[in-house]
């Protein structure tokens, strides 16, 4: 018997390995012209793993604290062997992960994969997207450079606009009235402990739900395949789909490596709370659509403060977004067209406002 078989048999005796992997063997992936969208979730997961691995490596040298953070990142970038690569990959994969998470969400929306019985998969996914944005917001401050400092100042100020709870929330986030070293310590804690813990639990739940409920089929195709079961086409998840997913991960790895080598992530200038904010300061691209919207709202709308109204509106839209599957029909033949229209509008709005925010002075 070969050593591999020996190991398998050893594991099977103790963990019922065959029983554990049986669902994977049975799992299939529907084959149709839109099947490639199924890769996005896996790519996002791959990038999350990259984040965890590179994040742990960065932790070996990173020191939080207003007097040390910038210098420690500078040390990572210049002195630590391949430190530049690890940090650049961490930063680039964070951005790519947010992009693929958004793309995954919209693909699920357009393919109507959130329908019954996958409501909880959608809810856990949207919460994961919020967490990923939280990762971005908290991680952005950690190098303690000028842009990060002022972006955090603006970002937490917006949080402070929420009626009643806003001010206490802002003080909780900042660890005081102002953005200081205390804010950095808190953000570091959120970034490396709180958010990863929550995200891991939710990812496991998300994957479990995907595994239990299988892959969704677009409603039109579902109707067609129900009427004509012989037309149904499938691919085995293991190894056929997984090998293709692996290819996508390899491509992702290549893109990440190229970005890190050709465009190493900039370190910027150390934050100085006593200097004026740089002109035209903007948040990271994934917050731009919200930032630009808040900028465009007049200072007063009727009797309400414009910014407060904007923050409340985003909160309401976020909540509706989270609960979207519960507005959908149970029948694949009767899916709500307004939800698709809403999704198209949301995508156009997010993309348009992001571009506008990027170009605006």
């Amino acid at each position, binding site marked *: 018997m070969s050593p591999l078989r020996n190991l398998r048999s050893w594991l099977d005796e103790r963990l019922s390995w065959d029983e554990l992997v049986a669902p994977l063997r049975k799992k299939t992936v529907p084959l149709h012209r839109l099947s490639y969208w199924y890769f996005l979730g896996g790519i996002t997961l791959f990038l999350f793993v990259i984040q965890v691995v590179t994040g742990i490596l960065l932790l070996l040298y990173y020191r939080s604290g207003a007097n040390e953070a910038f210098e420690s990142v500078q040390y990572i970038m*210049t002195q630590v062997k391949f430190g530049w690569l690890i940090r650049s990959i961490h930063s680039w994969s964070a951005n790519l992960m947010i992009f693929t998470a958004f793309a995954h969400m919209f693909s699920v929306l357009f393919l109507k994969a959130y329908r019954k019985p996958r409501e909880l998969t959608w809810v856990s996914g949207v919460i994961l997207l919020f967490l990923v944005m939280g990762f971005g917001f908290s991680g952005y401050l950690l190098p303690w450079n000028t842009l990060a400092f002022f972006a955090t100042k603006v970002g937490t100020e917006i949080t402070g606009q929420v009626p009643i709870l806003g001010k206490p929330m802002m003080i909780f986030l900042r660890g005081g009235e102002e953005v200081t070293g205390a804010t950095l310590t808190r953000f570091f804690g959120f970034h490396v402990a709180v958010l990863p813990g929550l995200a891991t639990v939710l990812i496991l739940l998300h994957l479990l739900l995907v595994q239990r409920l299988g892959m969704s089929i677009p409603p039109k195709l579902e109707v067609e395949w129900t009427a004509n079961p012989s037309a149904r086409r499938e691919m085995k998840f293991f*190894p*056929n789909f997984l*090998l*293709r997913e692996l*290819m996508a991960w390899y*491509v992702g*790895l290549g893109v990440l*490596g190229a970005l890190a*080598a050709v465009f190493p992530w900039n370190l910027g200038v150390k934050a100085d709370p006593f200097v004026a904010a740089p002109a035209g300061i903007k948040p990271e691209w994934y917050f731009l659509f919200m930032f630009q919207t808040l900028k465009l709202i007049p200072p007063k709308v009727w009797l309400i403060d414009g910014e407060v109204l904007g923050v409340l509106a985003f909160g309401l839209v976020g909540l509706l977004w989270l609960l979207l599957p519960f507005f959908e029909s149970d029948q694949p033949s009767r899916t709500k067209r307004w939800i698709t229209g809403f999704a198209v509008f949301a995508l156009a709005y997010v993309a348009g406002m992001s571009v506008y925010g990027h170009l605006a002075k």
Partner: protein
Amino acid sequence: MAILRNNLRLYGAARYFGLAYVVLAACLGFGQTKNSCLDCHSVLPDALGVSQETFSQDIHAQKGLTCTSCHGGDATSDDPDKAMSRKAGWKGKIDRKQIPQLCGTCHSDPAYIRQFNPSLRTDQLGQYRTSVHGKRLAAGDTKVAVCTDCHSVHDLRAPSDPRSTVNPVNVASTCSRCHSDAGYMKGYSIPTDQFAKYSTSVHYQALAVRGDLSAPTCTTCHGNHGAAPPGVDRVQNVCSNCHTFQAQMYEKSSHKAAFQRASLPGCVVCHSNHGIIHPTDAKLGTGPDAVCMQCHTPGDACDQARAGLLSSLKRLDEAVKSADQVLGVAESSGMEVSEARLGQDQARDSLTKARVTIHSFRTDLVDQDIQAGLKIAAKDLQAGKEAMVERNYRRVGLGISLIAIGIALAGLWLYIRKIES
């Protein structure tokens, strides 16, 4: 009095409207101290007119002084005869010759001035009497500047007020009102191009363009109330107030004694006075901007030293620029070279220091700064080159990695085809 009556008659219409204004002002100003002077003078034409708005901006008015504080008279009376009676101490228009003394009545009294501004000096009148203006006034020349010419009158503001005629930013143009007027200055035998030259100077750029209020204007070098030319042998004392290190170097140099022997005005010999432009290394050259060769003979020991100094400065300047260029390319390639960039600031400081040390006219001292700068610039250049090597190394590494990924992808694709065939 008769003249004033005639004037008032001539402007009867203005008086009519003035009366209406007085009534309105009286209504609005109910409860305030009466000032009958302004009731009339606020509606009189330019020569005699002082508007309420103008006077309210005056620092004296703001401190509670009134027209009568300088002009005497009785501002509580509406009757011009009583208000402007000699009996009430009315002085009328103050004679130019009397103005410094009148201002000095309060401004030379420390006990009085302390009530308003304890840090305000009270030696203005004493200083003025030592100035060219003061001396000429005492000799009967009433064309020279008196207090009101520079500080204005009735709308006099604190020098710290940007609208004040004696605010540092406005001093040069205030002086130029007389000193750039060739007609007015005729007979004084002094040039009238000072302001034109100053406007081209590095000092003007600093003060008026960059808004650096510590930059020199006319009064910084000539004094304000005691304004006078610094004098040929005192020029370096004036410049050294700001250019301390240059002055220290110059004091110990051989040039100081040589310039004194030749009655040459120190700093001005090489840098000029009002039109001082930013000095460049070309001053040490032999071209149109060169200054050394105005006195020295080509080929002599000093000329050789000059050439050596110029060559050293150029060498460091080029070394700094070369390192900057390489670091710039490395930085635009995303390489982290901030430490070397910081080093470059030190190298530039050494260059600046060497340029300051030039005022010692000693090659050994200048060479110390040059060598220090060259050492730093060489280190930074090396850091830049290493960053470029590292950049290339990364790209080669990327290429190899992409090839490996490509091979893995091809292998996977072939394997998928094999298991699905």
